[in-house]
C-alpha cells in the first residue's frame, strides 16, 4: 500500500484528464487550476502544467515546471526544449543555451533549436560559437535563417566582406528580408561608406516605405553631401516614425551611432521651414520672387 497516495482520488475525476478536457474547451486557466491540487502527478501532468503556464504567459512558473521534469529526466527533449524557450523569454541566455545544448546533444537534427541556441550565443557575444551553430544547420527549413544568422555572426566578428556576400545571397533568395538590408546599412555605417549607405537605404525604402532605418540612412547620406533639402525631408519622416531619435540613448550600446549637432539640426529645420513656405505659396498661386 502506498501511504502517500490520495485516498480521495478514487472518487474524484482524474485531474489530468479534466485538465486536458478544459484545455480543449479553451479554458486554460481552469485546466491549470485542475492540476494545482495536491496530488501525485507524473511527468505528463507536469508537462501539461508547464504548457498551460506557458500559454497563460506565466513563463517563470512554466520554466520551474519544465525544470522539475528535466531534473528527473535530463534527456526529456520536449521539456528541455520548452525550458530553453522559457529561459530565453526570460532573457536568461546562458541558462537557455544550456537547455538548448542538451536538446541538440540528444537530437542533433533539431535545427529550430540550433537556431535558438545560436541566438543565445549571439546575445552572449559568443559569435564564433553562433557561427558554428549556424554552420551546422542542415535542413531546408532553416536554410534562410541560418544564412542570415551566419551573416550576422560574421558581421559581429567584423568579417564584413563575407557577411555582405551572405546578406546579398539571402536577398537573392528573399528580397523582402528587410533586416538584411538594415544590417547592411549598419555595416556600411561602420566603415562609413556613404555610397553603400545610400544604396542599401534606397533598397530598403523600396521594400518598406516606413523603414526608419532607411530614412535615417538616406538622411545622413544627404547631410554628408550637404543636400539639406533631401536631408530635411528624410529626417522629418524618420522623426515621425522614430521620435526617440531626439533623445540620447539612455544605455550605451554596441550600435553604430551617428549624431546630429544643433548646427545641422537648425539647418534642417530652416530648410524645412523654407520648403513649407514654398509649398504654401505654390498652393496659393503666388509666384516666388
Amino acid at each position, binding site marked *: 500500500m502506498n501511504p502517500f497516495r490520495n485516498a480521495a482520488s478514487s472518487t474524484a475525476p482524474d485531474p489530468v484528464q479534466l485538465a486536458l478536457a478544459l484545455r480543449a474547451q479553451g479554458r486554460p486557466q481552469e485546466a491549470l487550476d485542475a492540476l494545482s491540487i495536491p496530488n501525485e502527478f507524473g511527468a505528463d501532468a507536469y508537462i501539461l502544467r508547464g504548457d498551460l503556464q506557458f500559454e497563460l504567459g506565466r513563463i517563470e512558473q512554466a520554466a520551474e515546471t519544465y525544470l522539475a521534469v528535466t531534473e528527473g529526466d535530463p534527456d526529456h527533449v520536449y521539456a528541455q526544449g520548452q525550458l530553453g524557450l522559457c529561459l530565453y523569454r526570460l532573457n536568461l541566455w546562458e541558462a537557455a543555451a544550456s537547455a538548448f545544448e542538451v536538446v541538440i546533444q540528444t537530437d542533433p537534427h533539431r535545427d529550430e533549436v540550433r*537556431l535558438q541556441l545560436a541566438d543565445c550565443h549571439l546575445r552572449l557575444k559568443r559569435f564564433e560559437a553562433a557561427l558554428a551553430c549556424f554552420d551546422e544547420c542542415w535542413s531546408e*527549413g532553416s536554410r534562410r535563417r541560418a544564412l542570415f544568422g551566419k551573416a550576422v555572426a560574421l558581421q559581429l566578428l567584423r568579417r564584413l566582406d563575407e557577411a555582405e556576400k551572405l546578406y546579398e545571397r539571402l536577398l537573392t533568395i528573399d528580397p523582402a528580408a528587410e533586416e538584411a538590408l538594415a544590417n547592411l546599412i549598419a555595416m556600411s*555605417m561602420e566603415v562609413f561608406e556613404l555610397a553603400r549607405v545610400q544604396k542599401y537605404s534606397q533598397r530598403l525604402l523600396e521594400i518598406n516605405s516606413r523603414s526608419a532605418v532607411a530614412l535615417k540612412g538616406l538622411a545622413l547620406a544627404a547631410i554628408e553631401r550637404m543636400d539639406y533639402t533631401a536631408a530635411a525631408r528624410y*529626417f522629418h519622416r524618420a522623426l515621425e516614425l522614430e521620435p526617440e531619435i531626439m533623445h540620447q540613448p539612455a544605455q550605451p550600446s554596441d550600435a553604430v551611432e551617428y*549624431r546630429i549637432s544643433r548646427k545641422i539640426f537648425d539647418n534642417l529645420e530652416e530648410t524645412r521651414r523654407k520648403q513649407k513656405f514654398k509649398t504654401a505659396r505654390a498652393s496659393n498661386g503666388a509666384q516666388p520672387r
Partner: protein
Amino acid sequence: MVDVKSAIARLGLSTTSSRPGAASQIEYLAWFSFPVTWTYINGPASESVSEVALKPRLASSLLTLSAIVPAPLSRSVAPLEVVGAADGIRPASSATRWEMMVPKMVRPPAKSVATLSPAAAPAPVAPAPVTRVLAQAATAKLPGQLTPSFTLHSAEDQFVARYWSQIVLAAIAIVALGCLIWGLSGPSPAARSAMSSTVNTANWSHQPALPAERSLTLYEPSRGEPDYRMEFSWVPDAAGVGWVFRTRDANNYYAAHLSLQQRGAAGVLMAEHFSVLAGAESAHSRKVIPLENAASLVKVQMVAAGSAFKLLLNDHPADSWTDARLNTGVFGFYDDGGRPPKVLALSLTFTGNAVSRTAMVQLP
C-alpha cells in the same frame, strides 16, 4: 557638415564617449542608431520544407518522472511556441527569385536510431526510476552521416527494396525471441545488480520508532550511504512533511520537518530539525521561512555532507546546521499519527562514494 561621424562603436572600438574633447564642445540634438539585429532567425521558417516537430512525451507512471511513452498533447487552444515547430508559410510579400542551391546532404552526427525513436525501443515493463546520466562526450561524433548512393540497384538491392518490411518484421521477431530466451535463462549477475539499482519499488521498510506513535518509512538502498542530496516536491499543508536521515535504527536518527504555519499570499513555513539518540528526542531547532506562494509546490532539497546539513526551499538556502554524531544511515520519512506526507517526485543523489548517482525513487 556633420560634426561627428561616430560610425564606430562596436567590439571595443570607441563610441562617441571616447572622444571627450569633441563631444564636450558640441551640443547634439539627434542620435541615429544603427544596431545589428537578428530577429529574422526567430521568424517563421519561410522555406517550403519544414522539420518534424518532436512531440512531447508523456509519462505513464505516477510518482516518477521516468517511463516515458510518446503521446500527443492537445494544443488546439493557443498556438504554443513549440521548439522544433517550423511552418512552411511563405510571406505574401516575398517575391522570391530562384537561386541554384546545392542540397546539403551531410547531416550533423546523430544518436543511434534506438535512442532517437522511442517507438522502436522495447516498451518498459514497469515504470522504472531513472538513473540520471550526466551528459558527457558532447563533442563525440557518431557515424550518423547519410551518404547518398547514385548507383543502380543490383538484384539483391531490389530484393531488399521489395521485401524490406518483411525483413524488418522477421528481424524484430528474431530479436524478440532472443530476448525471451535470454529472459528465461535469467539475467547475469551484473544485470541483476543493475536491475536492483533501478527497480526499487520494494525497497521501503516500515517500522515503529521512538517516541511512541512515530513510524519510519525507510528507503533501504540508502543504508550505508554517508552523504546524499534528497529532493522532493511538497504541497504545503499544516500537517507538514517530516523526513529522517542518517537513520541507524529506530532509536537513533536525525529528522527534519516542514509545515505550513500561515496560508495566504504571504505564507509562512516552519522548518525544524532535531535528533533522536538512544530513543531520546532533542529539542527542535526551528526557523520561520516566508513563502511567496503557499498554494504552489515547494521544492525541498536537503544536502547531507559529512557533518554538515543544508536545507534548500525552492533552490534558496533555508537552513544549515552541523551534527557529527551520526555518520551514516538510511533516508526515509516519518509520521506521527498516521498522516503520510504529500510529496512528489522524490530523488536521491548519493555522493559519498566518489561516484555520484541519482535515482528517482518510487514512493512506498
